[in-house]
């Protein structure tokens, strides 16, 4: 390759490199850098404190609380929303009257703005005159405060998340189902396979790349969850529904403890990176790519 081609090549990738560097790599490095310093306050400049922020993190009960919350949140929402997405995709794949309408209904939660979704559910959950209490009231059951009690707040947020994510993941499954030739299940049927066998031996294995993609997205989303919590619970009561990213937001932009916020962010980045790599390694052996 001659020299001019070399310059030409770099010029082509330059715009992408500039933006990626400015808005992704540089902030990431700054965050890691800041996590080794104290938070500057007033006239007191930031000081190098080594691993002190990380030590604080290990001793921080709220950090452990949100980590455990996040773990339950991930365990509760990911398998459920993926399973629901697959069931919904399979149910609207066949031709029937009103199929477009049902597909749209399944997908609507994803299209709605997050804040609107959270507000709709806020209305469902409102103690006394919310939809849920009105229905339970008909049967003479007492009032509930699902979002206000520490035992149920996180579960109530999880329900909203499953409701929203399942429709989104369904789209990926629907697209993947279209690429599986119908002859495969016909061939299996002629060979005596029941509908269950066709699903578990043919359809499900062929959907594995989609399941991998969707589950990685779901994991990342479960750690990026912040907007529902703003509207629904504000992380409360007593951090019962607070998740890692929400805690990072509160630390950095409400308490302005930017150094500790940076430390929490580094932990989150490391965690997400490890999860993604781990998933690829585990799934890779089981996934058939065409």
């Amino acid at each position, binding site marked *: 390759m001659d020299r001019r081609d070399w310059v030409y090549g770099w010029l082509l990738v330059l715009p992408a490199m500039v933006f990626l560097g400015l808005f992704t790599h540089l902030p990431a490095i700054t965050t890691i850098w800041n996590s080794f310093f104290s938070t500057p306050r007033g006239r007191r400049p930031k000081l190098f404190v080594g691993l002190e922020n990380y030590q604080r993190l290990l001793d921080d009960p709220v950090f452990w609380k949100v980590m455990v919350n996040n773990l339950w949140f991930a365990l509760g929402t990911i398998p459920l929303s993926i399973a629901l997405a697959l069931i919904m995709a399979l149910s609207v794949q066949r031709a029937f009257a009103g199929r477009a309408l049902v597909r749209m209904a399944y997908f609507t939660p994803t299209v709605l703005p997050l804040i609107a979704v959270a507000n709709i559910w806020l209305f469902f959950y409102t103690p006394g005159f919310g939809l849920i209490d009105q229905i339970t009231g008909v049967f003479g059951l007492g009032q509930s405060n699902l979002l206000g009690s520490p035992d149920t707040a996180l579960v109530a947020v999880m329900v909203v998340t499953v409701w929203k994510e399942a429709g989104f993941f369904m789209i990926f499954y629907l697209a993947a189902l279209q690429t599986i030739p119908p002859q*495969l299940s*016909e*061939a*299996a*049927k*002629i*060979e*005596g396979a029941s509908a269950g066998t066709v699903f578990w031996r043919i359809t499900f294995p062929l959907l*594995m790349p989609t399941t991998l993609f969707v589950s990685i997205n779901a994991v990342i989303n479960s750690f990026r969850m912040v907007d529902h919590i703003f509207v629904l619970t504000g992380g409360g009561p007593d951090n019962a529904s607070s998740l890692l990213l929400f805690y990072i937001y509160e630390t950095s932009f409400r308490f302005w403890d930017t150094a500790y916020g940076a430390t929490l962010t580094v932990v989150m980045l490391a965690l997400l990176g490890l999860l993604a790599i781990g998933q690829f390694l585990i799934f890779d052996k089981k996934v058939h790519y065409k």
Partner: protein
Amino acid sequence: MNKPGLPITLRGITKAWPGAVALDDVHLTMPAGQFSAILGPSGCGKSTLLRMIAGLETPSHGKIFIDDRDVTALPADQRGLSFVFQSYALFPHLSVAENIVFGLRTRRVARAERTQRLAEVAQLLGLGPYLDRKPAQLSGGQQQRVALGRAIIAKRAICLMDEPLSNLDAKLRQTMRGELRALQQQLGFTMVYVTHDQVEAITMADQVVLMNAGRVEQVAAPDVLYLKPQTVFAARFIGTPAMNILPAAALGALGQGLEQAAGRGLAVGLRPEALVQLPQSPVVLSCTHAEYLGADALAHGHIGGHPVVMRVAGADMPRPGAQLPLGFAPQDLHLFDFATEHRTEVAGLSGIFLRAGMPTAKPTGAVASPFKPKDD
């Protein structure tokens, strides 16, 4: 190694959707242990018919019998047949071995027997070295064999194939034609083979079912289909290049004589290979151009304003503009009712030729048949 094949009988099979009829009152028998080819242009309903025999679609009317057992309402897996798809429909995530024994596994055949039968089939089809590969790692011809393996391992009495060779290149197709035919004869199952390629149907089948627009045009052995086509459609579909069909009047005095003898309007059919140059003939081909094919050449031109193709030896290709007096043997002349397009026979052909001043050529039909002689 196989059970003998079972016969399939279709009675009054009709498939109609609102506004469209795919199959119209089809009556048909596929004899036990024979190779039946369903031949027709695309959209004639041949694949739909095959899918109904398989149980992948249900007829609107009519009944399907396999060995006198009414299977019309039976699901596909209880009809005791196997199916080879045009796309092969191999399971891409399973190895060759798993693909082949898929049906045995779903039917809970014991592992020892599965292994033994897999070995037999792999041996028969030469798939031994590939058993651990995935379908994507195989060539088209090898994938085809895997699909065949999956079809024959269960030793069913009937095997249905939907254009199984159409994804292969021409050379491989020719090899596979021979292998398929040999396999069917060796294992003795009843084969129903759908194709749009007349060469496949003619070379492999015991019986050709020619279909057109949802109807059966003619059911006959390949040579009978070529020598005695029952309709204009059959006449033009079988044989390459297609038979020339002209109104009888284009042949002048001979045409008039034929129509008088038949007492109605006629269309005459003449195969390009039945035409010979005959100096005294009143029927003249005005040659417009010629196609050189090597051993043969095709002379294109007109007789009485109607396009006609004639096969000549490659060495004596006519020049464009040449006027070629043509003759043919009375045996090589096909006559069709002009209105119904059905075959009709006229007695005393040689007399009619004589009275019309038409010299007769030696019959060429048998010699001109481009198909190999039947092997049984």
